[in-house]
């Protein structure tokens, strides 16, 4: 159907061409300042979408008629409009726009807006910045570059899921991640059972730009799914002109980053006695003659990844195309882990009528991921850390190829033997394969020079196949083998129709108005199969299982929305706007299904109406404010309690753990935002600051309820979360000369959250996943920040001194309390772009400050006797710093010495959760990218238009006060974690982040 339309469009377009009285116009565009040719200037026939860009010599050519007006626009330059009249050559000298404010920004629904008129904070990332990150997961590529964004990756494994949260989390247990939109089509960023976040399927090289809409104001028009903001992605397009071929190839070498330290002095055993059948490291000291192995470091390998991108683009004035193919093979630092991604994208734009454009895109993606990371709760590295040093972990097999057991247990039961992690890496493989197709069509019709219609329809469809095999011989109940498998079919269909009117009512007033309707249809079906015990030991099929359980879950959701947006621009100094949207969602009960939410915004630009000497210094100033609401619906199928399969004898049905709630209503988030945008000395120094306050009320949350109700969980409207924060952006252009330019920019961000209301009598809302310790858990506490840690502490006097018992041991107060905030107090990103002759250098340093990390890895290592501090402290005599209660309320300083033995560490120290909560900072040299552009005279000889080589260094250094490994942790990730307060800041045996070096070559013909 789409093809037919395209062909029909082409025929119509071609027939029109001969009718118009057009001729070819040529010309050169230069910079007025230095008379240098400007490359990439957009030249467009006003009121149409026909256009071209200037080539490397600043030249262009396009067809236009005498009545047409040509519009020349270029970032950083004042847009020029020149009537064609009888001219055939039009040369233009463009003037630098002092405040670089004509910059166009992509906002809601793919609408491009002049940045000047924006009344809320939108930040854009260019294709160059994305590529210079050298990150294949586009979420990671944003790290450190945008303020107001928290990104945490679950691990350094290939295809590891990353979590992104804008301006703090609003939901106590719903998904807090923003909506991802590609070319107007919302796509799935789901992560199921610890598999990668699906936005990572998108090849960063296909992206022309990303706009981050952080607040409710910016996202109001996207409706409920954008309640947490939106990441708007625009893919690359072809350009009119000769065929252009681009090739890009790179190779990356990576190694393991920062690990936790472990003690190397003591061997396995208990009470100082050697035991060769345990991982517990409370044995005697190693003797000098003992043969020891550095299993931890030996476990990792050097990862190598290669990527090839190729694109072909070009077109005539009536049709342009862009075709890109890409192949990525990423081999991890953990043996037998890899991630592959192959994609092909074709975009074509056809002017099917002089005022009608059809753009169609198809992106076909195939990814494969082999990984050994335990889903949802992590912890896979635990056995690597505690593997006895007297055993060589590398020695996985017997000479005959069978697996070597580290010991034979007393019981003789081989199912009790722990698996060698290197055996696990090769024989307990989890694989995740996705076939995905993103298709979209956009029809734009300019009815006249002020009214246009835009219709977009698109579909995001993927089939995911996940399979985890535990081969015969695995430890525990998988001794005879086990398989866990699921197939997921996910479809999102979007249809959006928008009318836009853009009219200059008078010289003083411009009105932009927009009205639209949107239909969203989501469908996801998961089929799970799992089971144990293979009949034939080597056949890894569910047909071969003796015990099989199956289930399926289907989620269906439909949302219809109508919306409007009006912006008044008065004499360029006053901008007033309002939006409104009404949604009807299938997930809410009939009576509460429809809900409306508005937004209002305001911009004031005093520099447009004042003249004076100070405008030489302060070239531009804008004050902006907005107030917005956005609604949110419920997860599908939560209104009634259903029955679920019963697997026991006799089978049949049983109650589902989810209680129904037939009176759910929408959740509403309200946000207020003010900002100032100042540009000094014609853009040499720019300063932008935004303050926001945000409150989510009547949250749709699914707390556990007391089973006395007959259910375990129930979706209810309850609870409020408040966030407020500051985003600062400072950028400059320094030492600018013909051959040199230094553009430093700093972005800073801090968010404060509070859980201000909660369901029923609840004072605490624990996070479902990543509960790896019973002394300290990720949990939200009423009246405290959302990203809380709740746990135990030592018993303390009112003055805060630790109370010690008469034998000198600290007393544990087992009552759990709020003991830490995992959200960093401040994020800082410092980015530098330096251009010198043919070299370009970008250096990105970023950091986070004041976050409390819950170091469950440390607790585990300690109780296991493997913690590094035991080298120094174990068996030392020690007087605990505390007081002894001599009589009720009377305390004396403790003087009783105790021995720091296993009993102390396990039964006292490890029971105080506060001992594993650390306030940390880190500063990371995240990225250095050096590009060398080969001189054009060289490459022209071999027929190239551009050629460059680049060297990219990632995660080269980490400065931190953290006692563990890398403090940037997220134990469960978005699979389980991004729901609610998630597991950001929970450290539990994840694969550390990688350090990597990339060498790339980029050529264009």
């Amino acid at each position, binding site marked *: 159907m789409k093809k037919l339309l395209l062909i029909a469009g082409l025929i119509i377009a071609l027939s029109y061409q001969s009718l118009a009285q057009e001729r070819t116009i040529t010309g050169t565009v230069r910079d007025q300042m230095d008379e240098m040719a400007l490359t990439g200037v957009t030249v467009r026939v006003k009121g149409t979408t026909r256009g071209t860009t200037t080539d490397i010599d600043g030249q262009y050519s396009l067809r236009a008629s005498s009545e047409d007006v040509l519009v020349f626009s270029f970032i950083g330059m004042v847009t020029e409009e020149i009537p064609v009249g009888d001219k055939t050559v039009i040369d233009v000298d463009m003037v630098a726009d002092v405040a670089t404010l004509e910059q166009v920004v992509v906002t809601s629904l793919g609408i491009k807006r002049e940045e000047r008129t924006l009344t809320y904070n939108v930040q854009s990332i260019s294709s160059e910045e994305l590529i210079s990150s050298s990150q294949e997961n586009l979420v990671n590529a944003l790290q450190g570059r945008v303020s107001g964004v928290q990104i945490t990756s679950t691990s350094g494994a290939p295809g590891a899921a990353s979590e992104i949260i804008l301006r703090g989390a609003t939901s106590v247990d719903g998904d807090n991640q923003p909506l991802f939109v590609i070319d107007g089509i919302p796509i799935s960023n789901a992560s199921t059972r610890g598999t990668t976040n699906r936005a990572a399927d998108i090849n960063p090289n296909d992206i022309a730009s990303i706009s981050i809409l952080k607040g409710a104001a910016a996202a109001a028009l996207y409706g409920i799914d954008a309640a947490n903001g939106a990441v708007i992605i625009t893919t690359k397009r072809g350009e009119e002109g000769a065929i252009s071929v681009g090739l890009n190839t790179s190779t990356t070498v990576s190694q393991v980053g920062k690990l936790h330290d472990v003690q190397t002095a003591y061997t396995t055993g208990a009470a100082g006695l050697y035991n060769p059948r345990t991982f517990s490291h409370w044995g005697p000291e190693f003797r000098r003659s003992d043969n020891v192995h550095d299993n931890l470091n030996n476990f990792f390998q050097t990862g190598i990844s290669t990527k090839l991108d190729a694109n072909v683009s070009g077109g005539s004035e009536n049709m342009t195309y862009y075709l890109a193919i890409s192949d990525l093979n990423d081999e991890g630092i953990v043996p037998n882990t890899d991630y592959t991604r192959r994609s092909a994208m074709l975009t074509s734009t056809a002017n099917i009528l002089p005022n009608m454009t059809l753009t169609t895109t198809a992106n076909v993606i195939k990814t494969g991921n082999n990984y050994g990371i335990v889903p949802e709760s992590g912890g896979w590295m635990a056995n690597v850390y505690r593997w006895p040093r007297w055993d060589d972990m590398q020695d996985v097999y017997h000479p005959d190829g069978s697996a070597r057991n580290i010991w034979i247990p007393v019981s003789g039961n081989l199912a009790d033997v722990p698996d060698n992690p290197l055996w696990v890496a090769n024989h307990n493989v989890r694989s995740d394969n996705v076939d995905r197709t993103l298709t979209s069509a956009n029809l734009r019709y300019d009815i006249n020079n002020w009214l246009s219609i835009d219709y977009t329809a698109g579909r995001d469809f993927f089939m995911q196949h996940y399979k985890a095999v535990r081969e015969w011989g695995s430890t525990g109940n998988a001794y005879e083998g086990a398989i866990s498998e699921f197939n997921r079919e996910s479809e999102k269909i979007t249809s959006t129709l928008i009318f836009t009117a853009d009219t200059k009512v008078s010289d003083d007033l411009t009105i932009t108005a927009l009205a*639209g309707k949107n239909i969203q249809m989501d469908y996801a079906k998961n089929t799970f199969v799992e089971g*144990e015990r293979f009949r034939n030991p080597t056949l890894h099929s569910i047909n071969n299982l003796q015990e099989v359980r199956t289930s399926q879950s289907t989620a*269906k959701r439909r949302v219809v929305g109508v919306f409007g947006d009006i912006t008044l621009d008065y004499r360029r100094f006053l901008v007033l706007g309002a939006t409104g949207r009404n949604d*009807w969602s299938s997930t809410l009960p009939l009576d509460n299904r429809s809900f409306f939410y508005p937004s209002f915004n305001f911009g004031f630009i005093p520099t447009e109406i004042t003249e004076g000497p100070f405008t030489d210094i302060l070239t531009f100033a804008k004050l902006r404010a907005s107030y917005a609401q956005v609604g949110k619906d419920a997860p599908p199928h939560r209104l009634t309690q*259903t*029955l*679920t399969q019963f697997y026991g004898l006799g089978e049949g049905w049983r109650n589902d753990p989810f209680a129904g709630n037939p009176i759910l209503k929408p959740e509403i988030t309200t946000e207020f935002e003010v900002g100032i945008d100042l540009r000094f000395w014609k853009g040499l120094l720019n300063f932008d600051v935004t303050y926001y306050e945000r409150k989510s009320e009547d949250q749709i949350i699914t707390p556990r309820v007391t*089973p006395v109700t007959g259910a375990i969980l129930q979706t209810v409207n309850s609870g409020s979360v408040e966030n407020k924060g500051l985003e600062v952006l400072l950028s400059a252009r320094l030492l600018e000369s013909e051959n040199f330019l230094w553009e430093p920019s700093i972005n800073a961000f801090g968010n404060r959250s509070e859980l201000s209301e909660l369901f029923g009598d609840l004072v*605490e809302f*624990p996070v479902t996943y990543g509960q790896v310790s019973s002394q300290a858990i990720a949990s939200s506490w009423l009246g405290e920040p959302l990203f809380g840690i709740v746990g135990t502490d030592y018993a303390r006097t009112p003055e805060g001194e630790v109370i010690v018992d008469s034998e000198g041991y600290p007393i544990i107060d087992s009552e759990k309390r709020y003991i830490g905030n995992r959200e960093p107090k401040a994020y800082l990103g410092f980015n530098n772009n330096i251009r010198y002759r043919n070299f370009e250098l970008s250096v990105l340093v970023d950091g986070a400050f004041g976050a409390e990390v819950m170091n469950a890895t440390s607790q585990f290592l300690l109780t296991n006797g493997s913690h590094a501090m035991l080298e120094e402290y174990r068996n030392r005599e020690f007087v605990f710093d505390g007081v002894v209660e001599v009589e009720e309320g009377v305390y004396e300083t403790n003087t009783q010495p105790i021995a720091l033995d296993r009993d102390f560490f396990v039964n006292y120290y490890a029971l105080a959760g506060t001992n594993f909560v650390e306030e940390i900072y880190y500063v990371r040299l995240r990225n250095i990218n050096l590009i060398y552009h080969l001189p054009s005279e060289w490459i022209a000889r071999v027929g190239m238009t551009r050629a460059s080589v680049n060297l990219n260094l990632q995660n080269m250094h980490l400065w931190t006060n953290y006692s563990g490994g890398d403090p940037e942790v997220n134990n469960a990730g978005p699979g389980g974690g991004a729901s609610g307060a998630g597991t950001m800041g929970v450290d539990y045996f994840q694969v550390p982040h990688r350090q990597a070096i990339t060498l790339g070559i980029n050529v264009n013909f």
Partner: protein
Amino acid sequence: MKKFSILLLFTFLFLGCEDFLDVNESLDNDERTTPNYMLPSVVSGMAYSHYAQGETAAYFTQYITTEFGGNAIRDRWDYRNVLRVGLWRRNYFDVAGNANKMIEFAKEEDSKNYIGVGKIMMAFSFLTTTNFFGDMPIKEAFTGIYNPTYDTQDVVYAEVETWLKEGLEALEQSNELTDREMGTTEDHLFGGDLEKWKSFANAILARLKLHTADFQSSYDEVLEYVDAAHVGWQEPLFAYPSDADSDWHRNLWGPSRPSPQWDFAEIRNLLNSSVHTDFFMNAMTLSGEHDPRLYQLTTPGENENYLSVPASQGIGALEIEDFAILYDGYWTRDDSPIVFITDEELYFIEAEAAFHNNDNERAYQAYIAGISSNFERLGIAQGLNDYLSSSAVAQSSGDLGIADIMMQKYMALYLQPETWTDMRRYKYADNVYLELQYPENVLDIYEGEWIQRIPYDPQTEYIYNPNEIERLGARDDRWILTPLWWAANSNL
């Protein structure tokens, strides 16, 4: 072009009929079914629950203790850092919650048989659960109230009694022609034989009345219910298949340590690292000779010795090879049955009630019948006469003491949760439970007092119903030392 715009405009204004949004019903699971499809989960759930109760109580009642000592709950009674106490949800969600739903479906179609069976199962689940926790919501259970009031235990007992009587009444009214069929597929206990259900209900009533008979002077009533139970009596025995192909189909006491529901940590048995206590071994040893039942309840260890240790102390320097293997005994195979109320228990209820009613003759007969049926169960009837004539057994009704009855009941109810109720009724008295010793390694803060109950589920009640927890004082670390209603009132 104009037509085209009109078309677009039309699409825009058209909002779609409401049907378009009516897609919120689950496509995979129904909200309703017929009661026959609910009964298996109710009965299986109770078998599961019975195991979990036994696993919890077996360490408190000193049948077994852990190999290493120092286990938080089992040896130290330390519930301070426990994430979950699953017995709570086993009652409300797994057994009674489903039974309640089943009764609802049965009432709609007026299937009296399912109504009666549902009430009996619900009553049994609540009765066994309240004996672990004490006060618990019963009147506000399943009402949707998210912070239900906890009823005192006497109210729970009264309500359970009412349910049992209602259950019996419904079974009386059952009409085979109009009721939905109940056969072996649905009813894993009795294959739909309602007479057997009635005797089970009477046995539950006998057990319930026994707990309070001492201070409510109701031993006559206990004996009446015992008599009623004996009419058409068949053990409520939940059989597991010998060729199970799933953890759901295995007895949780078995050596494969099944864990069909991954989310409950305490569910896996620890028999692989547990051993017998001195208390149990003393009872099973007579002048150096082992009670023949010992060999049926366990598997010989490598050295075929039957060592034991004091509760909570671990085996220390002893070799594990000198202890019996606890698996593959009568109750501890993958296909062992779960019996909700055993033949033996019914006899010992009779013996105890008759004894306190000063009917020693009847007490003695029931006592001997209890021992005999235990030997029969274990397939060693040929050794019975030797045993009965030994000094381990009271030789006449005149010799019979309460310790004889309770110690024989203790042995016959190996690993059964009801033993804990018995011990607490007798206040852990060492003249009833001969030579019972206080475990050395329990927390000092208990100051030598015995455990009387377990705390509510910390993952739900302490978080979601904090005001009731506060009112009861259940946050106190010593809460578990507070005797239950029947123990506090018992003069035994």
